[in-house]
């Protein structure tokens, strides 16, 4: 029973983490909150679904296609919204409103193209499969979700740590001016960052809709709020914080269903957010550099 709950929590948390890492990456590098991320997540889920259903391609390819498409949407949000606003030196909240506007357009388009009803991924070998571990029945899907999430996080970590693009991204995150001085093509790096961020959201979208068997144009709002929660838990712009915070939120939600009932599950997350903001605004895992609040 405990093992089962643990796996439930970790698989949920792993998806939160992947989504939130994309979110926090853009914040860390560009210092903007991209509120269209939830809609990008939803589009990722639909693209994955279409690839599986219409093209009948295997799941890993669907995740790859969804991540690529969602990454391009991320790029779109930079080109269409955030770059022009930054050039103009607009207020921070203009970026938030711009992101929300883009989300609305994306949700409307999804309704137009895919319809408003809730759909699900076609049955596959994964869906029903389960395995026994320490007396608990675990869905194979959960293990796959955890594995895929882990893979994405490792890929991102490797990208940031060992590649030139990664080094450039970290330089821009440190300071845009410094990056310009040492010859980093800042605009291109920003685009790359938005691509990676969108791709993570898209991948998370496929995993989420596999795990919960539902895809709808409105699935982005919920995850957006979860992403914001994880962002605060881990500290804005803190990637490791988002990873740990995501898994933590998943575990807390599963535990809170047991302790306070499913009705108050979401309140626990937001309650923790308020508590953290009031006591440790830079997140649970603040380093000495993250003193923005």
């Amino acid at each position: 029973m405990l093992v089962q709950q643990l796996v439930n929590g970790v698989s949920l948390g792993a998806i939160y983490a992947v989504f939130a890492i994309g979110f926090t990456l853009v914040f860390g590098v560009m210092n903007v909150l991209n509120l269209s991320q939830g809609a990008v997540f939803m589009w990722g889920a639909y693209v994955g679904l279409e690839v599986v259903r219409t093209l009948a391609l295997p799941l890993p390819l669907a995740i790859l296609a969804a991540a690529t498409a969602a990454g391009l949407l991320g790029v779109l949000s930079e080109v269409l919204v955030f770059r022009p606003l930054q050039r103009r030196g607009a207020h921070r909240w203009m970026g938030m409103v711009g992101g929300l506007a883009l989300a609305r357009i994306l949700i409307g388009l999804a309704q137009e193209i895919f319809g408003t009803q809730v759909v699900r991924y076609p049955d596959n070998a994964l869906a029903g499969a389960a395995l026994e571990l320490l007396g608990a029945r675990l869905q194979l899907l959960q293990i796959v979700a955890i594995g895929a999430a882990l893979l994405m996080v490792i890929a991102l970590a490797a990208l940031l740590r060992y590649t030139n693009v990664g080094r450039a991204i970290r330089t821009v995150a440190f300071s845009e001016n410094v990056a310009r001085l040492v010859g980093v093509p800042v605009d291109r790096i920003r685009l790359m960052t938005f691509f990676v961020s969108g791709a993570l959201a898209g991948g998370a979208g496929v995993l989420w809709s596999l795990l919960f068997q539902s895809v709808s144009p409105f699935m982005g709002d919920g995850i957006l709020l979860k992403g914001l929660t994880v962002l605060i838990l881990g500290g804005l712009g803190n990637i490791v914080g988002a990873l740990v915070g995501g898994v933590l939120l998943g575990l807390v939600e599963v535990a809170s269903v047991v302790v306070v009932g499913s009705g108050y599950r979401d309140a626990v997350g937001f309650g923790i957010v308020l508590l953290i903001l009031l006591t440790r605004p830079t997140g649970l895992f603040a380093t000495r550099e993250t003193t923005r609040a």
Partner: protein
Amino acid sequence: MTDLFYAYHNVIDLCLLNSMLAFGCFILLGVNLFSLATGGLMAIGAYLSIWLTMQQGWSFAPALTAALVAASLAAFGLGSLVLRLRGDYFTMATLAFTEVVRIIALNWDSVTGGALGVFGIPQLTETWQLAGLLALVIYLIWAVRHSAVGERMRAIAADELAVSTAGHDVARFKLALFTASGAIAGLGGGLAAHLNMFIAPGDFGFLRSVDTVIAPVLGGVWNLAGPVIGASVLVVLPEALRFSAQMREILIGVTMLAVVLFLPAGLVGLPKLSRRRAAS
């Protein structure tokens, strides 16, 4: 004919109500505070006022007053805790507040009717009351803006650090504004509840807060006409586009995006812009 009148009537009521709510965010945007607490504060006003009118037999005016006071107190409490947070952190804390209130409303069945909501609320809100109260709110904000306090508001918007260095207590000032915005939200919540005859927790969540704060941005943050124009556009545009729910979402999104990108001063800046075009 009567059908047409009623449809029209509802639109006007909604324009007036949402304009008033938008002013609650307007005064905060004026000092660079992007608050998403509106939904939560409205919920407090709405649920308290219907409990008073439906269960306790209060008449409308005292119930509205109670809603206003309760939401102001809540805003005062919340503000004294979260106003020291800066920028996005403040926004996030206000969002968390709204969501916590919504979830409590969702689960507190005996008072709020849970997810099903409360039916059969007496329809006590009249168009003239909405118009009168909106006029009062606009007059008060106008008067404040044209006083020494308004001067300080603009100074804080321009350079907060300079104002506090000059010896003014910026924190207390912001708290006063946040409390005032809570009063508007609470009043609006009470009016909204007695306008629709039905409320559910979903009416007061993230989306409500977002729509309310978007209205002044859309209309114009530096002009008193801004919130009215923005809120009215957000009410009328969906009505005009009734034929297609999807096109509605897309067109509202495009309008919002166009304003954010091309009209930093909001829709009120439109005539000036076109005049300048014509002149050059």
